[in-house]
């Protein structure tokens, strides 16, 4: 059964791709057909993915590989393929399920948008690309889908291209991810050069992530003494992941990406695409482990690559959390929260291994999608209003949205016991705590948890509590207070909420099913494990952090409701300079503006000058030289050759004239010449031979 499903797995990305193609062809009036096509395709691939997930759940140590020869160039053949193993199955199931829900949500959200078909076409394309990336067994295929996903995000962010900010944001997203992808590409090329193949796993065992290739990577390589090539390749791949998942240096594009429609943000910038970076690191984890010194009881390995990842993750988590506190746009807060959560995932991956990172990714996908869709329905309800200062008291008009949003908030901030967020974050903090290298990431993680809880409570107070603060004289004169979204939008919220809660059960320390599944072992119930001292300590600290965060949040914003939009933020009154800095996103954009872009402009101007003056000059010089030579040639031609030739011809003609005179047609002259010749011959003969 599992063999057949492995073969069927290829349909999972292909179906949405076909749907995208079909949608691309359908005309605008048949808009309904586009959405049904997309949702149908996603539903089918979700069905296959989930059944494959259930099949492999029973045998986590399985890894089924299907490879095929894609290209024959000379004597090298490039292989692509897909595979079914716990990691890919889990991701495929999550992506397809969340995608399906978001498709259904956006059917309502985008109902009266005239580019409806184009939207669903792009969504289907994105789904196909993401699913393809997830099940890819070759880094090349993964890279192809990676680029497609980047393309889809660009198209969807810039969906309302008539808005200049959206177009600029799409460009910014695309370019920054591309900077990261350069690293990925270099890593890929180096990997292929070193191991000769890009396929992860093959039956014969020559895959680049399999033992043979890893040993060669570890030992060989020009920099064997200093840093193993594997580490360098891993770091290069990490650049790509950082770009795509919005880690610190390359995170600037993610908040701006909120210009796209909310379901897009939900699907791409919360659940799936941003997770691709983490998934990539999980997929190439064996590469990261090369040359690791095994120590520490929690079988966590420490290698330079993993250390780097851990530090970057921790720093991003804290940094983004700080900025999220001071944002006023509902989606921007969630964006920064996603950046910080991704930081947590990388922290977990770096410190605790694949399972820890991936489990948080899965839980985060659900509750962040939930939060985004909730924000979407709030915006939809408040007549496209995105600034939280002009909302307020929404709970009275949108009870379902408020309820599901509250669940999502609590899961995100890690309220203990019921919510999946607590367990997955706890795992990360536990791994960070046990990290032999240093304790600082653990402290950063805890502080981040406090801040997460704080800005989420701030957001909820602003949006759902307090008086309704709509803009003065709402320009479109509709009924001033918001209305609840239709069922097609609220139903996915409810489902996501149940998952946000339910998923936690699979990841508790007592029964770490998800972690072991991802590690490829069978889980076994062990309540005793729950109460071991060290675990309890970590759970305690995280509990304290969350409580402190929510308390502070309520204290600042919950006590006296925010009466008017104009009033400055509570926090702002006390720590205005810090708050203003945070509001301006710590001037990172300005920093880039000042450094990278100016440098780029400078370099462009410099090269322009170089090009125009030096190269242009050289070309001009050559041109002039050639023209000069041509002139000389022509001069020589006219005066030298032609003149000479004419002279020669005139001479010949004159000479010929003389010659012609000899032949004047008179027989006598000829005969006379003959006679003379004969006489001389005769004389020569007679006298000559004596």
């Amino acid at each position, binding site marked *: 059964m599992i063999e057949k499903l492995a073969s069927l797995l290829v349909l999972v990305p292909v179906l949405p791709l076909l749907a995208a193609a079909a949608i691309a062809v359908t005309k605008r009036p048949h808009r309904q057909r586009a959405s049904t096509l997309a949702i149908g395709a996603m539903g089918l691939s979700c069905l296959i993915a989930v059944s494959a997930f259930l099949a492999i759940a029973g045998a986590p140590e399985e890894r089924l590989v299907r490879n095929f020869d894609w290209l024959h160039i000379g004597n090298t053949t490039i292989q692509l393929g897909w595979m079914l193993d716990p990691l890919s199955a889990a991701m495929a199931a999550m992506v397809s399920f969340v995608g399906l829900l978001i498709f259904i949500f956006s059917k309502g959200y985008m109902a009266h948008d005239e580019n409806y078909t184009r939207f669903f076409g792009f969504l289907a394309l994105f789904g196909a690309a993401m699913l393809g990336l997830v099940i890819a067994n070759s880094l090349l295929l993964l890279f192809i889908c990676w680029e497609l996903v980047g393309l889809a995000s660009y198209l969807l962010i810039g969906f309302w291209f008539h808005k200049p900010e959206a177009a600029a944001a799409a460009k910014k997203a695309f370019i920054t991810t591309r900077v990261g992808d350069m690293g990925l590409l270099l890593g890929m090329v180096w990997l292929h050069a070193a191991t000769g193949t890009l396929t992860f796993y093959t039956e014969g065992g020559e895959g680049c992530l399999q033992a043979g290739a890893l040993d060669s990577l570890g030992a060989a390589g020009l920099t064997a003494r200093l840093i193993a090539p594997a580490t360098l390749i891993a770091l290069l791949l990490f650049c790509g992941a950082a770009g795509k998942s919005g880690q610190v240096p390359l995170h600037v594009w993610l908040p701006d990406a909120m210009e796209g429609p909310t379901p897009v943000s939900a699907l791409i910038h919360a659940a799936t695409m941003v997770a691709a970076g983490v998934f990539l690191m999980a997929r190439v984890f064996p590469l990261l482990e090369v040359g690791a010194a095994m120590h520490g009881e929690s079988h966590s390995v420490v290698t330079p690559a993993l250390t780097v990842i851990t530090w970057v993750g921790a720093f991003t988590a804290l940094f983004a959390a700080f900025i999220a506190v001071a944002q006023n746009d509902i989606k921007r807060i969630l964006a920064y929260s996603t950046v910080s959560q991704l930081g947590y995932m990388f922290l977990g991956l770096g410190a605790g291994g694949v399972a820890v990172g991936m489990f948080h990714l899965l839980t985060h996908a659900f509750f962040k999608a939930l939060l985004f869709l909730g924000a979407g329905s709030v915006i939809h309800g408040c007549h496209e209003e995105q600034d939280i200062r002009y909302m307020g008291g929404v709970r009275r008009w949108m009870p379902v949205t408020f309820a599901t949003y509250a669940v999502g908030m609590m899961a995100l901030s890690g309220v203990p016991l019921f919510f999946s967020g607590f367990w997955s974050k706890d795992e990360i903090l536990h791994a960070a705590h046990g990290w032999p290298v240093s304790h600082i990431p653990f402290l950063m993680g805890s502080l981040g948890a406090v801040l997460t809880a704080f800005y989420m409570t701030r957001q909820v107070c602003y949006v759902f509590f307090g008086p309704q603060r709509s803009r003065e004289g709402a320009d479109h004169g509709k009924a001033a207070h918001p209305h609840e979204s239709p069922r097609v939008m609220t139903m996915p919220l409810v489902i996501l909420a149940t998952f946000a809660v339910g998923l936690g059960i699979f990841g508790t320390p007592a029964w770490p099913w998800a972690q072991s599944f991802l590690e490829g072992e069978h889980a076994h119930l062990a309540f005793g494990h729950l109460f071991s001292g060290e675990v309890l300590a970590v759970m305690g600290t995280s509990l304290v952090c969350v409580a402190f965060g929510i308390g502070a949040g309520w204290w600042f914003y919950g006590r006296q409701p925010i009466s008017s939009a104009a009033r400055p933020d509570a926090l702002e009154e006390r720590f205005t300079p810090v708050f203003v800095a945070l509001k301006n996103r710590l001037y990172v954009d300005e920093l880039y503006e000042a450094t990278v872009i100016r440098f780029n402009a400078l370099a462009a101007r410099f090269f322009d000058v170089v090009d125009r003056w030096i190269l242009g000059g050289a070309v001009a010089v050559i041109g002039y030289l050639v023209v000069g030579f041509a002139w000389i040639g022509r001069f020589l031609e006219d005066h030298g050759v032609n003149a000479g030739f004419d002279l020669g011809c005139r001479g010949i003609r004159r000479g010929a004239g003389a010659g012609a005179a000899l032949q004047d047609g008179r027989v*006598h002259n000829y005969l*006379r010449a003959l*006679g*003379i010749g*004969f*006489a001389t011959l*005769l*004389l020569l003969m*007679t006298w000559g031979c004596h």
Partner: protein
Amino acid sequence: MGFVFPLIATLTVLGAVGAMSFRKSIHAALSLVVALLGIAVTYLGLGAEFIALVQVLVYVGAVAILVVFVMQLTRSEGGQGEGMAVRPAALGVGTAGLVCGGLISCVVLLPDFRTPWPEKADVGLARLGEALTGDYVVALEGIGLLLTVAIIGAVLIALKRPNKEETPE
């Protein structure tokens, strides 16, 4: 009999000079006949009797007549005032003299010509005939072909083509 050759020789030379110098071309033709007859007699003197007869038959009988005939046809027998221009004449005679001098110098200076006449078997006509039709039959056929072609060619060249426009441009 010794006097026969010089007489005949002078006669021939006179005929030849006359042939070349008579103003009236008919006289020139007739003096040519005299020269040719002189040569024929010389052949007789040399014992080549058949050749002499052939000479007379061909040259005197046919060639001379033809020349005279053509003179009539081209109305140039009068030799109207076509006197020799001095310069080319001098030049012509000069060259001829040069050539003739060369030949004579060869004859006079090369000593081995002075040996006496060997006894020669009279060349019977029969032997001549056998040689002609034996070893030299190809030459004979060649001469036959040549003469035929010459006749046809001469007739064609001299044929008065009705449509060809005669008057020179």
